[in-house]
């Protein structure tokens, strides 16, 4: 089992959930942390399309009222063990949308958040550092 978990820490697969984000963080995530220039694949990461393949889940956005149920459902579909990373200030405080009638956040009222990467949007280097921190937590859980 120890051998398996040692191998598992080198293979964290990433999945993105957009919880009503303004797309700023998504653009940073998808087009900046994913493109060849900032290579997360060297950490063993791989973006996967299905939540069922994921190990580390990256959540962006302030959790709007409309999207809350869907986010929780997708989150439940990620098999254990998993690590949650909140990208941007919105998931934690609501960011510029805080105190809005349409916001159900902060997200840690519903989901356990392990790492937060603040910024509006955060720099790609910061996102990669957040992923590296999440991998340390993932290594303990896997």
């Amino acid at each position, binding site marked *: 089992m120890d051998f398996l978990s040692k191998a*598992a820490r080198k293979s964290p697969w990433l999945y993105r959930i957009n919880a009503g984000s303004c797309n700023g963080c998504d653009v940073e995530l998808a087009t900046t942390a994913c493109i060849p220039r900032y290579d997360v694949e060297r950490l063993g990461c791989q973006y996967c399309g299905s939540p069922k393949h994921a190990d580390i889940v990256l959540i962006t956005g302030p959790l709007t009222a409309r999207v809350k149920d869907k986010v929780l459902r997708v989150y439940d579909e990620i098999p254990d063990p998993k690590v949650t990373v909140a990208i941007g200030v919105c998931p934690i405080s609501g960011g510029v949308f805080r105190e809005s009638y349409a916001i159900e956040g902060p997200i840690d009222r519903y989901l356990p958040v392990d790492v937060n990467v603040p910024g509006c949007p955060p720099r790609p280097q910061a996102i990669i550092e957040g992923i590296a921190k999440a991998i340390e937590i993932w290594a303990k859980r896997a």
Partner: protein
Amino acid sequence: MTTETLWTLATVLVFPGGLFALVLGLALKGVERRAIARLQRRIGPPLVQPFYDLLKLMRKRTLIPDTANAFVFLAVPVAGLASMAVAAGMIPIAGFFEPSPLLGNLVVLFYLISIPAVSLMLAGSASGSPYGAIGFSREMAIVLAYEGPILLSLVSVALYAGALTGQPVLLNLTEIVRYQQQHGAFLFDPWMWPALLTYLCFIPANLGIAPFDIPEAESEILEGPLVEYSGPPLGLMKMMSVTKAVVVLGLGIALFFPNGPAGLAGLLVFIIKCLVLVLAVSLLKAAVGRMRIDQAVLFYLKWPELLGFAGLALAIARF
């Protein structure tokens, strides 16, 4: 059980089927990912990354969706992997390994090679997910398109080798390899070039490599048939696909360029040929985007089909 049965079982389970094909396939996958990373000027994952991924999947929970047919959903990866292990046991390695005649000939191998595609279709439809259903229909379309050309290519080689050895048709892969060992590879024989090109066209579609990775397009239909899989069954699916890569590349090598020295060096030459093919495939994958399913089907029904018929005509003309 006789010793021959035991030996055949060993060829299917340990070498060159089962274990060996799995390890070689995972290593080739690692080389492919690394090569693509280097072509994109990044560092890329370590060469052993596919091994880590597979071990990781063994630690994850297995989820079965409510809408899925649980038995088919879980049985299909096992069936696909088993068929690929048997198929890998049927690939001769010139100078090093001759498959047991108990396993059958080229026709059996042809059927075994189409089983992973059938498993993916069943997996997609049994998962009960709309993405799986789309993956299922796309997989079906592309299989129907490339199955014709690959059959024409195999038949051309069998007829041609038969004509050269004075038989109507030579379906025994070991003898095809032996003939080429003695008289030179089909790779250097212009009569066989259309069949060779057809086979090369078939490789990316069967292995799900861009521009023909349409059934498992992860950025549009979330890996299609694999969308609902998690944990160990997903690991089995990944094992099936890497073993399939070894079978398809190995069959191409056996049909067109099996020549190699005797003994352990023969195995080494085989692995080097696989590596060269994988590097070529990585270049293709890194260079092109994904086609639409209708474009891919039309492409296969046009050019490889035409090449296949040309190859067949040349093989018949040799009688």
